[in-house]
C-alpha cells in the first residue's frame, strides 16, 4: 500500500471533521469552561468564580420561571402535537389524490420560515383587529387577549408550534403506519377484534419506534424554541414566555454576562444531552415487538 492510499481516507474526511470539531464540538467545551468565569466580553481578564454562576442562577426567581416556562411549553406542545398528529395520520393514511392534497396542506407550514409563521400568527392573534377574535365573535364567544396577556401568551405560542408541527409529525406517522405488514391487520380482522383493541394490540406497538423517535425529536426541538418568542413576544408579557434559549440570548447579547449565559447554556446542554442519550439507548434496543 502506498502512503497516499493510506492517507487518503483521512484527507477525505478532514474538511468535515474540521468543521464539526471547530464549530460544534469545541464550542461545547468552551461553553462549559466559560460557565465557571465572570466575563463581560470586553474586559480582557476573565475572573474565575467556580460554581457561582450556577448558584446565582438557581437562586434567581427569573431563571426558575424561565425553566418552568420551558417545561410547560415543551410538555404542552409535544403532547398535543403527538396526539393530534397520530389521530390525523390514522385518518389520512389512505390512497387518493384528495388525501395527498390534504397531506400537502398539512405539511406546508413546515417548510415556511418561522419568521413568516410568527408574523402571520401575530397578526391573526391581534386582539383588536385579528381574524381569530373575529371568528370567536362570529360564534358568539368572548374575545381573547392571546399574546398580550400573561395568562394566555404561552398557550398561544403552543398553538402556533402545534400548527406548524403536526403536518410533519403526521407524515412521519403515516410512513410508520405504512411499514406495518398488512397481514397483521388481516389476522386481527379474522379474530374480530374491535378497532380500539386493534389499535392497542397492533398499531401502537408496531408504531412504537416512530412514536419514540418523534417524541424525542419534538422534545429536543421544543426545548430550544426561540424564533416565535423573539418575534412575537420578546419573552413577555412579564416574562410569561421567556424560555431557555431566549434567556441565554438576552444574557449573552444584551447584558453581556457571558459566564452566566454559558451556565444557562450548560443547563440546556444537560437537557439535550440526556434526551439524546435516551434516544440512542432506545435506538440500540429497538423498541419493537414483532
Amino acid at each position, binding site marked *: 500500500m502506498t502512503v497516499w492510499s493510506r492517507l487518503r481516507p483521512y484527507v477525505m474526511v478532514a474538511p468535515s471533521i474540521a468543521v464539526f470539531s471547530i464549530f460544534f464540538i469545541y*464550542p461545547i467545551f468552551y461553553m462549559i469552561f466559560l460557565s465557571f468565569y465572570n466575563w463581560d466580553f470586553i474586559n480582557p481578564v476573565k475572573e474565575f468564580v467556580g460554581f457561582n454562576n450556577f448558584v446565582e442562577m438557581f437562586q434567581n426567581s427569573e431563571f426558575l420561571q424561565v425553566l418552568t416556562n420551558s417545561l410547560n411549553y415543551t410538555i404542552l406542545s409535544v403532547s398535543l402535537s403527538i396526539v393530534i398528529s397520530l389521530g390525523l395520520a390514522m385518518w389520512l393514511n389512505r390512497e387518493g389524490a384528495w388525501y395527498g392534497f390534504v397531506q400537502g396542506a398539512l405539511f406546508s407550514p413546515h417548510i415556511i*420560515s418561522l419568521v413568516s409563521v410568527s408574523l402571520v400568527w401575530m397578526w391573526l392573534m391581534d386582539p383588536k383587529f*385579528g381574524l381569530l377574535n373575529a371568528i370567536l365573535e362570529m360564534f358568539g364567544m368572548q374575545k381573547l387577549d392571546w399574546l398580550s396577556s400573561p395568562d394566555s401568551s404561552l398557550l398561544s405560542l403552543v398553538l402556533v408550534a402545534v400548527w406548524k408541527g403536526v*403536518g410533519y409529525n403526521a407524515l*412521519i406517522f403515516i*410512513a410508520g403506519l405504512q411499514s406495518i405488514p398488512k397481514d397483521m391487520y388481516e389476522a386481527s380482522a379474522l379474530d374480530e377484534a374491535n378497532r380500539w383493541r386493534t389499535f392497542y394490540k397492533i398499531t401502537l406497538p408496531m408504531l412504537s419506534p416512530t412514536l419514540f423517535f*418523534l417524541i424525542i425529536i419534538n422534545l429536543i426541538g421544543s426545548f430550544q424554541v426561540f424564533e416565535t418568542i423573539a418575534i412575537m413576544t420578546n419573552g413577555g408579557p412579564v416574562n410569561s414566555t421567556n424560555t431557555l434559549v431566549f434567556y441565554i440570548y438576552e444574557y*449573552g447579547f444584551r447584558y453581556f454576562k457571558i459566564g452566566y449565559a454559558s451556565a444557562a447554556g450548560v443547563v440546556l446542554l444537560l437537557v439535550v444531552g440526556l434526551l439524546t442519550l435516551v434516544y440512542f439507548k432506545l435506538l440500540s434496543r429497538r423498541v419493537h415487538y414483532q
Partner: protein
Amino acid sequence: MTTASKSIVRVLNVTAMLVLVAIFVIPFLWMISTSLKSYSETVIFPPKWIPSEIMWSNFAAAWNSGPFLKYLMNSVVVSISILLLQFTTITLAAYAFARYSFKGDKLLFGITMVTLMIPGQLIFLPVYLLMSKWGLINNLLALILPFSSSAFGIFMLRQSFKQVQEELIEAARLDDAPEWKIILKIMVPMARPTLVTFALFSFIAHWNDYFWPLVMTTSDAARTLPIGISKLREVDGGAAWHILMAGNMILVIPILIVFSFAQRQIIKAFVYSGVK
C-alpha cells in the same frame, strides 16, 4: 353498513377534511388578503376578506423600507455557498466512511453522529465569541463556515454509497480508474436521488433560517431576508400590518411555488430525514 349511513359517513369525512384544510390554508389567505389592503382596511372589525382597492404599492413600500436587495443577495449567496460546500465535503467524507476501513474510522464517524445531535441554539454563544475573535461578525463567512459540512448529509449519503454494487466498483478498479473518477462517474450518479433530497432539505433550512444570521450579525451588511422581513415590525411603530404581510409574501411565495411543483419530492425529503 347500509348505503344511507355509508353516504353520511362520507359527507362527514369530506366536511372534516375541508375544515382541516381550512385551518392550514386560511392563515396564508389572510396574509395574502392583508398584503393587498390599504392601512385603513386593516383596522376595521370585523375584518373584510376582499380589499375594496388592490394595493400593489404595499410590496414596493415593504421592499423600499430597508436594503432588501442586499438582504436578498445575502440570502442567495449564503444558501448557495452552503449547498456547494456541503456537496463537496459530504461526498468525500461519505465515500471514505462507506468504502474504506481505516484506523480511527469509528471515532471519526462517532464525532459526526454527535454533531448531528448538537443544535445551533446550544452553541451560538461560544461560536459567536470565536467568530468575533476572527473578526467575522457581520461577515457572510460566519453564516457559511459552520454549515460547510453536514453530519446529516454524510449519514444519508454514506447509506446510499454502501448500497452501490461492489461489482461496479471492482470493474472500474480493474480498468485502473482513479478513485476520483469512481466517485464522480459511479457513486454520485448512483446516489443522485439522495443528493437531490439533501439539497432540497438543506436549501430550505438555510433560506428560512432566522436564528443563526440574527446572532452572527449586528449590521445590515451580512443580514439575510428573514431578518429583513422581521425588521418590518419596526415600520410605523409595528402597526403597519399591510406592509408586514406584503414583505412576508416576498419570503413565502418562492418557497410555496417550489413546494407546489416539487411537493412529492420535498415531502419525501423531510419524511426520509425523519425516518432515516
